[in-house]
């Protein structure tokens, strides 16, 4: 299969911008021509039940889209960073959980199956 041509890029790596991203929706203005504009926005789309063009936008994305003539409605700023440590299960808590689940289960015999195979 043919290797795709590399699209022209003027951007930095996602996440290398200042330490914030935005959740927002992208809207066409009068200067945007054509019906399929949403297909080539080059943004991190997330589904939207209302059918809006919702995306997670870096500062670079915002600048580019505004320059291209789109209107942006930013709903929330996200600080860029790892998952909060408090949301990660510690090894100690994991051990407690799995030990609790399997308490008394080791070497538990298998139940009688419905039917042994072809000699039934």
């Amino acid at each position, binding site marked *: *299969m*043919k*290797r*795709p*041509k*590399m*699209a022209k*890029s003027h*951007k*930095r*790596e*996602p*996440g*290398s911008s200042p330490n914030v*991203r935005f*959740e927002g929706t992208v809207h066409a203005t009068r200067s945007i021509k054509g019906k*399929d504009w*949403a*297909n*080539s926005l*080059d*943004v*991190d*789309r*997330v*589904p*939207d*039940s209302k*059918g809006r063009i919702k995306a*997670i936008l*870096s500062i*670079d*994305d915002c600048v580019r889209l505004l320059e291209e003539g789109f209107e942006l409605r930013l*709903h*929330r700023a*996200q600080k*860029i*960073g*790892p*998952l*909060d440590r408090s*949301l*990660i*299960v510690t090894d100690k*808590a*994991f051990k407690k959980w*799995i030990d609790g*689940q*399997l308490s008394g*289960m*080791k*070497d538990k015999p*298998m*139940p009688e*199956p*419905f*039917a042994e*195979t*072809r000699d*039934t």
Partner: protein
Amino acid sequence: MYRTVSQLDSVMGILAAFFPDLCSRVELPNRSIQGRPIYALRMRAGGGGARRGVLLVGGMHARELMNPDAIVELMLDLALSYLNETGRSYGGASWSALDVKIMLETLDIWILPCANPDGREFVMQQVGGDRMWRQNRRDNPGTPCDGVDLNRNSDFVWGVTGPATSCNPCSSTRSYLGPTPFSEPESKNIEYLCDTHNIKVFADVHSFSEFVLYPWGHAPTQTTDSTKVFTGLATGTCAPLTPAGYKEYMTPRDFSRYRTVSQRVADRIRQVRGRNYVLKSVFEVYNGTTTGSCSDYVYSRHIANASRNKTYGFAFETGPNTGNDVLSFQPTDPEPIKRDAKAGLLALIQQSICAIDFIGTSLFGLSVESIRTIRDRMLANTEAGRGWINLFERVQFPLLGIVLSDRTLTKEAATLVRRVKTLTTQHKKAIVSKEDVDRGIAFLDELAKRTTDKKVKIDLSTVRRFLKGAGGQDVEKVIAKLGKSKPAPNKK
């Protein structure tokens, strides 16, 4: 709270170590880009040889953290329910001990809970990590940008772009499709599992939006023009799909099956706590082309190469859109959403069972190919025929438990399967005898006596009425009649 990659792996290792007759952990042939081993777990109980396989995959997109946890918990729940001979409930959705037993004794259930371990590690990495990371951790040569979207990297209309599919490694879509189809070891593992096991049903579990998704993703799905098949499309173009307005064909039978199964999954999820998962094609998620997705790939395999088995590919998008994307991907309390997901996956596993295949092939070593051929080539082509197929698929699970719990009934079911196989193999000259009809009706009556489900009783009486009129007719006429007259329940 979310488990680390090593904790997820530990659950599989412990299950395999504690219950070797029930669980086998397998290291997949392709390690992650950063060299991490990637494991799958197979669950099966009881005897029998070849079985239908179900493959559940999670964690392909790193930031969608809930699903790997939900999948390993589901396996643990199934193991404990089976061994303790107890049922399993998630909120208001319940499965009996018998239901669990049937699932584990009729299927090979495969899980690949964390398909993208490097990505998950990066999301949790406290120095330099990014909780919104989606792709794997491929270092794309010649660019400052890392990552390939594993759910755009499969060999299915690969290299055609859309709103969430890009050829640019530095794309803000975070959906770079990679340098070649299956360039990534993590996505190659999906191909490997499909190549080496009899996977009939596949689910790729993502977040968020509360959708149950079915093919196609590259174009809208249609069931009327069978000349529109993806094998004729230009790929690797790094351009939108051509021709414009293209719609991909799906057989009416498969479309009906996808919709029916997806609806049953959504119904079961609703029972948990009332959440309404919506049925959509993958294309409808962004109202635009998505190519190289795993769920489309697995389903496309039998069309691209007729020697391959058909695999029904589904995708779930678990959890609601809360209006806050971080909390939608990574809720502070994921437990209710995991319960929804587990119920949906159990419903899908249940829908993956084929009673005739299990009783015929797995228990008694009979090939049921001629029966499958009649279903797929004759009944599936008409609305009435599909109605009979749907009826069978509706009742088979509740009745299979009754049949398998009684050796005499199991043997009788096998005898009937054998007789149907004989009749359908020679169907041009074979006659359905009075003895065939009497024996079939006696079996149906016994099932009706034993089931407490009123809807199943109605379905059984519908079949009974049809069968009563089949005596003395040749099989070809009987099948033709099934294809013309929809199952009509008795109104009395």
